């Protein structure tokens, strides 16, 4: 990918309220045309960060710059951002077209021209011909699209989406995720999207920013954050994981040896000798036969399983510790049977405490 222009730069941004810290000092850069997802549980600071970017919340410290210009003290109206709100916040007394054209009217665009542009925006979000309808005549998914059209109509340098799909049912949410990505590619726009849904984050983001307790825990492409999380929190929050406490005891043949509750394990990843850490093993990384580059974890007893379509999700007990595995759908497990478990050296993730 070519070196891209920097669009947003957040420098040492923090937000304190009377008795709590919503965001500790944070730096974040966003490139033009990037789809960034802020992911975290409620209270993680992700919405605070988005609100600071949109100008709805003033940061306690730090600077916000968009396209090189300092916007820290500018109100939302004067920023080149537009927000899609969680509850859509459509104007209930206006038609769909008037909603979409509102930002253009505020920019003193002529009526004919702005209605033409509103129609084009509605076309873009798949609502061609809906301009004359009232907001209350629309379904939830259609309202979501109107909110989107209204925000992109003003050609924002950055589009901010605050849990935009939270109110939609699962099927519609999956469909809208695809459409958001398609729209973002088509407009070459910069999207910053807040969600607590890690599947949503993984499926749409160019870059996931995992947040917790007002700080960024990890950020990077979804696959990297999922497979090689940088923190214990990121490893727990993104998908299912088996985590075992352990202690690095030294290097053996270029590998790190770790003593854990389930025995001594070898990992490709580096760790300082004597360091206390967690070992992470994804359920889908557990194998059931010996292979080159893999080590044995021992035999686990199957305690419970459920069918998930593509696989069985199996809960087993390994040396008195619970461990989750994924067994292929064609080999149904049986409760009480033993399952030999193997894991590759390169799949082990070592997480600092």
């Amino acid at each position, binding site marked *: 990918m070519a070196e891209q222009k920097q669009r947003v730069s957040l420098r040492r941004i923090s937000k304190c309220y009377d008795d709590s810290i919503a965001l500790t000092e944070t730096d974040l850069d966003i490139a033009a045309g990037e789809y960034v997802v802020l992911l975290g549980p409620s209270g993680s600071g992700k919405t605070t960060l988005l609100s600071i970017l949109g100008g709805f919340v003033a940061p306690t410290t730090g600077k916000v710059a968009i396209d090189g210009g300092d916007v820290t003290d500018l*109100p939302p*109206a004067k920023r080149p951002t537009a927000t899609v*709100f969680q509850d859509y*916040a*459509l*104007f*209930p*007394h206006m038609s769909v077209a008037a909603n979409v054209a*509102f930002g253009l009217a505020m920019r003193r665009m002529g009526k004919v021209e702005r209605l033409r542009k509103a129609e084009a925006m509605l076309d873009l979000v798949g609502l061609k011909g809906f301009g004359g309808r009232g*907001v209350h005549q629309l379904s939830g998914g259609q309202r979501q699209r109107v909110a989107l059209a209204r925000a992109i109509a003003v050609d924002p340098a950055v589009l901010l989406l605050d849990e935009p799909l939270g109110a939609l049912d699962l099927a519609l949410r999956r469909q809208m995720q695809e459409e958001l990505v398609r729209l973002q590619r088509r407009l070459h726009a910069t999207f910053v999207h807040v969600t607590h849904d890690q599947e949503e984050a993984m499926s749409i983001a160019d870059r996931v920013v995992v947040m917790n307790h007002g700080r960024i825990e990890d950020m990077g492409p979804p696959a990297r954050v999922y497979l090689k999380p940088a923190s214990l929190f990121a490893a727990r929050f993104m998908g299912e994981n088996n985590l075992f406490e352990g202690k690095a005891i030294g290097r053996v043949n270029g590998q790190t040896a770790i003593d854990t509750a389930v025995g001594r394990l070898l990992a490709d990843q580096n760790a300082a000798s004597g360091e206390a850490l967690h070992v992470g093993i994804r359920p889908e990384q557990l194998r059931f036969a010996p292979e080159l580059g893999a080590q044995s974890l021992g035999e686990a007893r199957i305690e419970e399983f459920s069918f998930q379509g593509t696989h069985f999700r199996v809960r087993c007990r390994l040396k008195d510790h619970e461990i989750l595995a994924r067994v292929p759908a064609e080999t149904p497990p049986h409760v009480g049977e033993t399952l030999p478990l193997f894991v590759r050296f390169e799949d082990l993730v070592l997480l600092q405490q």
Partner: protein
Amino acid sequence: MKAAPRRLDWGDGAALLYMALALLFIFLPVGSLILFAFQDGMAPVPPFKGPTLAWFDKVLHNRRLIEALWNSVLVGGLSSLVATFLGFLAAFSLARRSWRFAEGAQLFLMAPITVSYLIIGMGLQIAFNLLGVDRSLLAVGIGHVVINLPLCFAIIYSQLGEHQANIERAARDLGAKEWQVVGLITAPMLWPTLLAAYFIAFTLSWDEFVIAFLLSRFDVTLPVVIWGLLRSGLSPELNAAGTLVFAISIAIVAAVEFLLWRGRKAAVHG
């Protein structure tokens, strides 16, 4: 889900009887007032003879009554407008600005609701005396603003929730200035509520006697004239006047209910 239909038993019979008696208790006075407005005779007492529209004809040709009716419309119309406008401004500012004394201010704004009209009327009389304001329709109108402002404030404040605040935020985000937010978004979005507040204030002003009596002198409102006529004895003409006043109140209340119902419907879908 609908409950399965069930056979009526003695308890239901007793409940229905009780309800009928309660409704009779509530509506008998109004019912007899209206019935004897159509009395073909000089006294609005049983037995009922009639019906006739003669008394309505007389009321509509009674200059004092008609003049008072227009005075009432004037006082109610303008005082409710002022009360709604001031109530809206107060509600908007208290709902939208986090302000240290907001709760105290709200308490003070609402407090007049708990004070009797008699006390408010006397207080206003004293205050107007000090200020050199004569007893007049203007004084009555100001009195009605005093009693209706808290109500208008409460009605409008209740409709300025977080969802509405977010809608205003969206308008600001899209470039609207503060006056544009209020003028293009908040007020139009709230119009059913504003109209409801206006009409409720109007009905209260329309029916209000104590303050109107204490603060008026030559030009008086309808309730004051009716009270004056009552002193010279019962007449079906008074029944006819009362029936008209009642009919107008009912029409306005029905309009308010309709507007609130539409507003709720829009809110559910909005």
